[in-house]
């Protein structure tokens, strides 16, 4: 049963992203800003840091699977989220080997991950032509609000999720040994 907790949690996040925009208050100041919830990515960063061992790649496999799910369900172009999420989590997975894990390091990794992923998505969409805003405007209206909103999600999520992930990790990898 323990095995299914992680995928179920990720599926729940994908579903919740669909209603995430209902939570944003309807204020005119926020009208021009675009906030993209990358909750799945934020959670996968924590999976990469707290759950994965050095030589296991659960976070990357899940990034591919659930990135593809987001592509199919929420966008009309398949493959963009899958590729960008997988690449970002791969970088974070590599990075987490080098750095000592504490609260601020994970926060920093989250910021880096959301930044890289959203910029990557912007560039791919820009080349395909589905998004036709230019770099400066993109940065002001989308990148910065998106990073801030996802930091907020991280701050809420971190204390709840961290212990769970460490526990699941111990259960998962002890059994294998």
């Amino acid at each position, binding site marked *: 049963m323990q095995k299914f907790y992680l995928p179920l949690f990720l599926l729940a996040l994908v*579903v919740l992203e669909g209603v995430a925009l209902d939570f944003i208050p309807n204020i005119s100041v926020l009208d021009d800003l675009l*906030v993209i919830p990358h909750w799945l990515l934020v959670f996968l960063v924590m999976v990469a840091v707290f759950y994965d061992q050095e030589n296991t790649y659960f976070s990357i496999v899940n990034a591919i699977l659930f990135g593809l799910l987001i592509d199919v369900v929420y966008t009309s172009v398949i493959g963009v989220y899958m*590729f960008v999420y997988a690449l970002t989590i791969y970088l974070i997975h590599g990075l987490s080997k080098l750095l000592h894990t504490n609260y601020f390091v994970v926060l920093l990794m989250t910021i880096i991950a959301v930044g890289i992923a959203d910029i990557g998505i912007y560039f791919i969409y820009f080349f395909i032509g589905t998004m036709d805003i230019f770099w400066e405007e993109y940065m002001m209206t989308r990148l910065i609000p998106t990073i801030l909103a996802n930091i907020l999600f991280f701050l809420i999520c971190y204390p709840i999720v961290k212990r769970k992930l460490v526990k699941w990790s111990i259960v998962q990898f002890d059994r294998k040994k």
Partner: protein
Amino acid sequence: MSFFHKKRLFVILVGFIILVGLIGFSIRDREELSLVEEFLHDTVGWFQSIVHKPVDFTTSLITNIEGMKNVYDENQVLKSRLSQSKNLLYEVQELKQENQELRSVLGKTESITDYQPIQASVIARSPEASSHQVKLNKGKQNGVRTNMAVITGEGMIGKVQSASQFTSTVLLLSGFDRSNRISVNIAADNEEEVTGFIVGFDPESEFLLLELNAYEVELNGEELVVSSGMGGVFPGDLEIGTIEEVTPDKYGLTQIAYVKPAADLSNMDHVIVVNRLAAQPEEDTSEEEEE
């Protein structure tokens, strides 16, 4: 070590090739979704419809409380309008009757404005803002098909981009471009009929771009824009918005009008999918072949 580097590079390159392949597969004009996609849409849609209920309840409760503040003022305004609308109602009824009689005289029963409504609820909005999509809880089983128009009580909000068995995806007006134009009529004061096409959306001003077919048209703003039904996909007389401003286009050959959408595109819960009853010229043959 160099072996691992090569392997890593190889994997990333293969991933990139898969990415390009998938984009190429999904970006071309597809009429139908593949079975796998339909299955994923329906499965996630089922979860979404469960999650959406409590969320919708809370958010609508908050807006209701906010709305109560203005109840008294609104009531005053509405009362004064009531008498006016009564007159209008009689007029409309008379006109409707007359229209029906004239039609029966002509022996013409089908009209381009006829449609069959399918009630649906929004269960999710795409978190990716650039895809301009919302999901509905009705699908092919309820008669929803690709390219049907979607409206709210206020006006048109978009069209069905893809339908799976139990859910469907709507492309909002803000995501429209030249590949899905809407043929429209403009209710101008003079007797001439003014026509045009909605060709896109201006994200900065949040207005629709309307290309007028004739150059020498005098429009002073505030005119109502409705779909004409001549595009062959949507029924006629669906309200789209009001004209805000008219400017010549960048080559000076045509006029571009900025149209303010009548419906609120960022906030809707209950919508109507519109099934056009008049024959659709292009799709008739292909549908018959399939069935």
